[in-house]
């Protein structure tokens, strides 16, 4: 499965936000969130980026999907420096990434029908309506939803169904990379397990590269083979899940794993 082609590569990326305080924004004041991140993800990998709030994991995600230009460093997607391209060209590359945002309650326009929401990524591709409709139905069946929901609005759907719609939306343009931002944190336990199983199903059937950003080690264990642990904007630990669990390299990882065991009723047999 691991063909060794690097799909995403970050070299010495430092990123942050401009502090917009009136005229100060003319000068470049930055609040640095990520420091010297080096990262490479090969095709067909399942990676989890793990960090607590404030660790910079959502900033890292913004950098990868082309929304935040890093202060310095290179971001390569399919060997192209996306931030050196104009937005039009950049979007053509980013369209190969299926992005599932964090909050299923804020990520769907409440005034559109599910059909319109799902067809949106295909609009720029110039396909005819019939093909789009066919593709929409295919994807909806694939994520385990009924066809009737196509005529519903997001308000009529439950949290789990919304999350499935978002996954379907990400899959509709045949992405080669799937990026999931906290895919289960807004969901209940049983729905969370359904979504985890669905995502693993997708991975097994389509073989997309899957990147999960999460704070939950236990969820990450199901959605990734490799873990990258972020703390205060730097990568403190990286490696396969088994290795991180049995032999964590940094003190922070050990603390994270330990605190998880303390709050769980059954430790491993």
């Amino acid at each position, binding site marked *: 499965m691991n063909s060794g082609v690097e799909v995403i590569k970050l070299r010495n990326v430092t990123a942050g936000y401009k502090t917009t305080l009136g005229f100060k924004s003319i000068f470049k004041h930055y609040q640095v969130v990520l420091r010297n991140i080096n990262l490479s993800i090969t095709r067909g990998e399942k990676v989890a980026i793990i960090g607590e709030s404030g660790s910079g994991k959502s900033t890292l995600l913004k950098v990868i999907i082309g929304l935040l230009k890093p202060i310095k460093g290179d971001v390569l997607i399919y060997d192209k420096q996306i931030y050196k391209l104009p937005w039009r060209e950049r979007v053509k590359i980013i369209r190969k990434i299926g992005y599932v945002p964090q909050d299923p309650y804020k990520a769907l326009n409440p005034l559109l029908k599910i059909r319109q929401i799902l067809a949106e990524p295909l609009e720029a591709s110039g396909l005819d309506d019939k093909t789009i409709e066919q593709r929409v139905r295919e994807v909806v069946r694939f994520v385990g939803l009924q066809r009737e929901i196509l005529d519903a609005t997001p308000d009529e759907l439950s949290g789990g169904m919304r999350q499935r719609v978002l996954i379907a939306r990400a899959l509709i343009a045949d992405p080669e990379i799937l990026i999931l931002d906290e895919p289960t944190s807004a969901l209940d*336990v*049983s*729905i969370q*397990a*359904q979504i985890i199983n669905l995502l693993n199903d997708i991975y097994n059937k389509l073989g997309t590269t899957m990147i999960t950003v999460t704070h939950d080690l*236990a969820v990450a264990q*199901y959605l990734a083979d490799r873990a990258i642990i972020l703390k205060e904007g730097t990568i403190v630990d990286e490696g396969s899940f088994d290795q991180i669990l049995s032999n964590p390299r940094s003190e922070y990882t050990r603390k994270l794993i330990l605190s*998880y065991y303390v709050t769980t*009723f059954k430790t491993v*047999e």
Partner: protein
Amino acid sequence: MVLAIRAENLKIGYLDEEEEQVVWATRGVDLNVEEGESFCLVGESGCGKSTLASAIAGILPPHALTMGKLYIFDQLVIDDSKRNYNGIRGKIVGLIPQNPGTSLNPFLTIEDHFYYVLKDSKNMNKSESRKIAHEYLLKVGLNKDVLEKYPHELSGGMQQRVLIAIALASNVKIVVADEPTSSIDANLRAQILNLVNSLVKEFKVTLFIVTHDLASAGKICDKIAVMYAGRIVEMGPTSIITNKPRHPYTKMLFESIPILGWKRALNPLPGEPPNVIEEITWCSFRERCPLKIEICNKEPPLMLTDENLHFTRCWRFKEVS
């Protein structure tokens, strides 16, 4: 044993948006919590667990509708539509709210927070309340400097500790905690849970925790009640519930929690909790139940119990585990 909380067929509901129908959040809860126990109410969102917690803490909104009875230390606080929390709210029952960031007034120092609470419940003046505040802050692991600070100067974990101290400072006998750890990071979660647990043992208060996190519930509580669609479907001592669940819903919950270091196949049942407005006269779990038989469609199951006080609301409980 003295019963701290006793609910008899308690129903709480709200009017829907058009103000035509009543949406029942809890549909008849029978509940006994003994004094000194730590009791945990587990359920998914929308099952009515937060409504039940606010009924016990006395913070139901005025437009809520109630039926049935709720006793707190033998004082009747909800008697059908009558509600009377005098002498209970803040004096016998304290609350640790869900979101520490929005539960503290940003314009008051921590000292003032203590003062206003203690003035109301125990008629204290400023210097007395300061002494008490100091004492309780030490107990939750904070030092004296915190007293002069404003809430935004504290981290999320510290804010939660302050709230715990405030809840305990007025010598309440019952502490209701509504998802106390849901907005805190994982490594703080362990600390806060351990803190709550040790304080509860120290002050001998009754703890009523509401959570969606079955994993941490099993870790700290003596008793667990599982709620589904407004009813308690299973209730009993933690060790029995975690080892031998008798309701298919509880069993399914345990099979779908991801546990670190133990990568077994997750086994969730398809479907989602029902969203019904009318009275449920069948087993509310029938749509998702793998063991469904004829009787499940006709009658809601009774609450059955055994010698371990393990209550189950399922017709086929014997076949589950």
